[in-house]
């Protein structure tokens, strides 16, 4: 930190306009983030608060098999959701990018409008659709695909379904944005040179929109890891994820140190893909410079 007298007038003005947000975010973002890691080493008190002294007990308890199972489930549910979203979003983004300008705007609106509803309401809508007396089950039963015993709610599959529903538009938009900038003449050239449609798609189109794919991946995978409402409302005990476990520790067990140890795990899980993507991008940029392409 500089002493005030050492600052040029320009620097002083800069500090003056930056200070309000810096102070606010230090107080309500940086300190809380640090507390997540600190409180994992404090004991709980019986009234739902934080006890005195320090302990390693909570961190050691993280290795319980039940916690491990939840961590693994959180990972595979998030990966599966991301994969399904990408598989659906690539053709959708492609179609929107190739549509005429009038249709492009219409389709984009159609993608965005359902998400003007409250997030909770959308989860609730699925809850009533998948309800034992709801329309989806009636339909499946009529088609002979479900028996009277089948439960559609409260399992990991329901969690994946509702998560795909929630995150799909956020995957379509970056892929559309990348596809819109893509020069489709390259695909036509590849076809003229004898590439089969799928080959041209895989070897030319997908690499061409890699930046959009990467953004789409992060936009789904990171919030998916932290999902809480969806597993809480449609997951049941077999669909529990890290996020719902954290909330349970806070509101049911009233044990903040346990919640903070689990949250610290979640922080690290979220950081991993971010750091990986940043490293990948840096490496790619360096390769581009060596290859003589503009980044």
């Amino acid at each position, binding site marked *: 930190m500089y002493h005030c007298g050492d600052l040029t007038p320009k620097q002083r003005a*800069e*500090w003056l*306009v*930056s200070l*309000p*947000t*810096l102070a*606010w*975010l*230090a107080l*309500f*973002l940086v300190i*809380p*983030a640090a*507390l*997540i890691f600190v409180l994992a080493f404090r004991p709980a008190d019986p009234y739902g608060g*934080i006890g005195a002294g320090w302990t390693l007990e909570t961190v050691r308890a993280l290795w319980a098999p039940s916690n491990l199972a939840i961590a693994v489930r959180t990972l595979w549910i998030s990966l599966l959701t991301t994969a399904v979203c990408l598989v*659906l979003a690539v*053709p959708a983004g*492609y*179609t929107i990018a190739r549509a005429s300008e009038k249709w492009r705007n219409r*389709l984009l609106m*159609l*993608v965005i*409008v*359902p998400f003007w*509803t*409250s997030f*909770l*309401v*959308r*989860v*609730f*809508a699925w*809850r*009533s659709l998948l*309800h034992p*007396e*709801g*329309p989806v089950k009636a339909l499946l039963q009529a088609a002979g695909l479900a028996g009277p015993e089948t439960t559609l709610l409260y399992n990991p599959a329901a969690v994946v379904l509702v998560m795909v*529903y929630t995150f*799909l538009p956020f995957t379509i938009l970056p892929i559309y944005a990348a596809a819109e900038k893509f020069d489709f003449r390259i695909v036509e050239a590849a*076809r003229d040179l004898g590439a089969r449609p799928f080959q041209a798609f895989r070897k030319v189109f997908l690499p061409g929109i890699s930046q959009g794919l990467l953004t789409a991946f992060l936009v789904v995978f*990171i*919030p998916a*890891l*932290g999902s*809480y*409402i969806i597993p809480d*409302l449609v997951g049941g005990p077999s669909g529990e994820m890290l996020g719902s476990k*954290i*909330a349970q520790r*806070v509101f049911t067990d009233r044990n*903040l140190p346990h*919640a*903070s140890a689990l*949250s610290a795990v979640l*922080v690290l899980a*979220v950081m991993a893909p*971010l750091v990986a993507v940043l490293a990948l991008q840096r490496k790619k940029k360096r390769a581009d410079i060596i290859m003589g392409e503009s980044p």
Partner: protein
Amino acid sequence: MRRSRFPVAVTAAVLAFFYLPIIVLVANSFNPARFSSRWQGFSLVWYRRLFESPEVWQALKNTLIVAVAVTAISVVLGTLAAFALHRYAASRLQRVHYTLIYAPLVVPEILMGIGLLMAFVAAGVPLGLVTIILAHVTFCVSFVAMTVLGRLQDFDFSVVEAARDLGAGWGRIVRKVLVPMLMPGIAAGALLAFTLSVDDFVITFFVAGPGATTLPLRIYSMIKFGAPPMINALSTLLLAVTVTAVLASRRLSRSKR
């Protein structure tokens, strides 16, 4: 060259997937049946129940108090931050500033919620509407700052220099030049902050405490502990309000241009 029909078919299926739950929800709000698989005629009974529920009105009032306060604070802070980020873009301080402002956009909500809860508990701050406002501002500032920053990207600072050469003081420049020129960005940011505050559940749930219930918290407890048809009616109303607001703001911005 003949294009494959496959992507178009997937897109159509995706759109059907997007609209199906919402259509069922709106339809069910007019269905008097408690468990809503069969249509039992058109009725407004759930809407009447909704309007007669004092808890819903109280929650709506809390939601609006929070949203107005959050919008006011985050517009001032966010615009100031965007100005700093743009004006001093190259400095090391602004790099830190940018990272901090960017963080709430990527951090999962549950982590912000639990961190803030711990901070409030550790500092002994009683949970209530005030803690909800503090928490909401923390993420709304980022959205306002990014929106205004986007507007600043094509802002010509020579206008400010010209105003200074003509003898205007900073107060006057802010009032007569900066704010009017940035208004579309600020208004868009304010709208975003308001919407995000009204809709937020996860962070609110962590920092609300027992007394202060907002509309999403109310909806959540209605989902968890029964009263489904009333949620259908409430959601339909919310949907109607948002669609009207967005269409109005689009028309407004179009007519200005």
